[in-house]
């Protein structure tokens, strides 16, 4: 299988001199297409920073991120925006839906940016909403949805444009364990059905068990990389 994510000596440092903090220090990982990978580690180990750098949301201090054979570290702001729009789907811990848009509008937002036709958008939104169990909630605004429902909308938004990579930063952290597990099961099912590459961070042992590959970080370094 071809690699869709590759980091080469990836580092992210904050501060300088005595106050220098190495949030991520020379991380080298390769993730292949269709993998369902968990990044685990204690708080402050660099999980979120790694996902942010892979997603091009933050600037690297050193090293490179290669996604779909493209070095995103060299891209301009606009190129990076377009790349994220077309290749990466994000699921955030705090859902981060657009509050003034309904569930349906949040899901179709990226397709609008991509210029997908109205019919195609409608078809895909209907399909994904059924897949994530949101049928009947299309017109609700984020504030009218529960945490679990909001996170389902976020997952649907991340997946609807068929990106090659889905990055999820502690997607279950704000949910109760049952809802969290249900969400992970749903992600796993979608991963199997759609062959999308899922990388998510977590510190919940039950969630970790669902992953087929577990990368462990400690103090910004990869200390273990285990494939089941």
């Amino acid at each position: 299988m071809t690699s869709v994510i590759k980091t080469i000596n990836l580092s992210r440092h904050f501060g300088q001199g005595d106050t220098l903090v190495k949030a991520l220090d020379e991380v080298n990982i390769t993730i292949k297409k269709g993998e369902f990978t968990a990044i685990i580690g204690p708080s402050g180990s660099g999980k979120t920073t790694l996902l942010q750098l892979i997603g091009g949301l933050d600037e690297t201090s050193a090293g490179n991120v290669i996604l779909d054979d493209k070095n995103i570290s060299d891209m301009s702001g606009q190129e990076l925006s377009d790349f994220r729009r077309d290749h990466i789907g994000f699921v955030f811990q705090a859902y981060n839906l657009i509050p003034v848009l309904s569930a349906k509008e949040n899901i179709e937002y990226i397709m609008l940016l991509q210029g997908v036709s109205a019919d195609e958008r409608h078809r895909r939104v209907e399909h994904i909403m059924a897949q994530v169990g949101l049928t009947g909630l299309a017109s609700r605004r984020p504030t009218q949805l529960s945490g679990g429902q909001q996170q389902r909308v976020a997952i649907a938004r991340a997946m609807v444009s068929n990106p090659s990579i889905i990055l999820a930063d502690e997607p279950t952290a704000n949910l109760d364990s049952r809802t969290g597990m249900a969400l992970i099961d749903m992600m796993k099912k979608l991963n199997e059905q759609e062959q999308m590459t899922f990388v998510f961070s977590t510190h919940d042992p039950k969630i970790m068990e669902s992953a087929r590959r577990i990368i462990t970080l400690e103090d910004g370094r990869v200390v273990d990389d285990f494939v089941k």
Partner: protein
Amino acid sequence: MLLLKLAFRNILRNRRRSLLTLLSMSGGYFLLATMISMSEGSYSHMINLFTQDHTGHVQIHYSDYLTRPSLNKTINNVDELVNNISGYPHVKSVTSRVYAPSLAYGKNKTFPAQVIGIDPKREAATTLLELKVKQGQWLSNGMSESGYFPALIGVSLATNLNLGLGDELILISQGIDGSIANDIFIITGIVGTADSYERNNVYLSLGAIKQFLAMHDQAHEVVIALDHQSRAMPFADALKLPQNLNAAPWQKIEESFYKSMQVDKKGNYISLGVIMFLVSIGVLNTVLMGTMERTREFGVLKAIGTRPKMVFMLIIMESFILALASCIVGMLLAFAPIYYLTYIGLVMPEPIDMGGVEFQIMLGEFSAFVLLVPAITVIGSTLLVSLFPALKAAKTVPVSAMQAA
């Protein structure tokens, strides 16, 4: 469409704040529109009174007559010129005048006087002189029963010479041929006030003055009244005249009046600028607050693939919609006061004297200029103050923005 939808919903999201911003900008529009209406209307009214008093909108003279006047510097074939110009577009009326410095004698006193020859019918159509006759009647072309030409005399000159209606007035001057000109005229009217332009003038008909000064088809001045004062400059520039003649708009003839009015206007615009600056500060505060509290959202929008340019445009569009709505509200609010000022006006308890021209009513102006300038100013300043927050949001790094909240 996506931007428009987002912009509208973002505006409606914090309705109270949007309403307050809208009211503040509408207030700014209202103040600007009414003040510009008052300012333009008053100046326009003042210019109309001034030009109708005696200046007209455009004057024609012998080339250097205005700077070095002389009896001999005349416009020849003046009747033909007056008739020609009468047919030009936008010309309301045309008249010619003859000027002669004279010594006026009445009963046992003498006094210097400016004698002005006018065409009674054309002058009445061009200026307000006929309406300024305080005693007696308007000038006629023919001779009186006693065989003398009639004369209108300024009120100060009449007082100084102790003359009244029906009295004889003796004028002594120099004819155009160098001879001594002297004749008797009968006072048929007293004109003006002690402060007005005509207070020391004597008005004779063109026939009378030409006979008095031995002149033929000549005049010193041709005065043109147009259908609107704003046409004066382009009309004077476009007028094709013989080489020895000059056309000047009222702005050049009454340069000091025009310049003092321009300075006054600039002062008004500075006041308007201060109002707009204060409104802009309020708008900047609102836009900046609205942008800063949505920093996280802008981070998310960028994270999921929204281009920086689109984030920039979103904020600009929100400001534009708010500014446009404010202008519409402001326009509706300002409509009635501007209408009242324009068609009824503010009557002052005491008339104001401006360069000898009295006016007692402050009028507004109802025009596209009055409505559009405040709209352009409000929208322009709103967009200007929105640039900084919009750029800030567009340039933000997604992860920093998402951590901001």
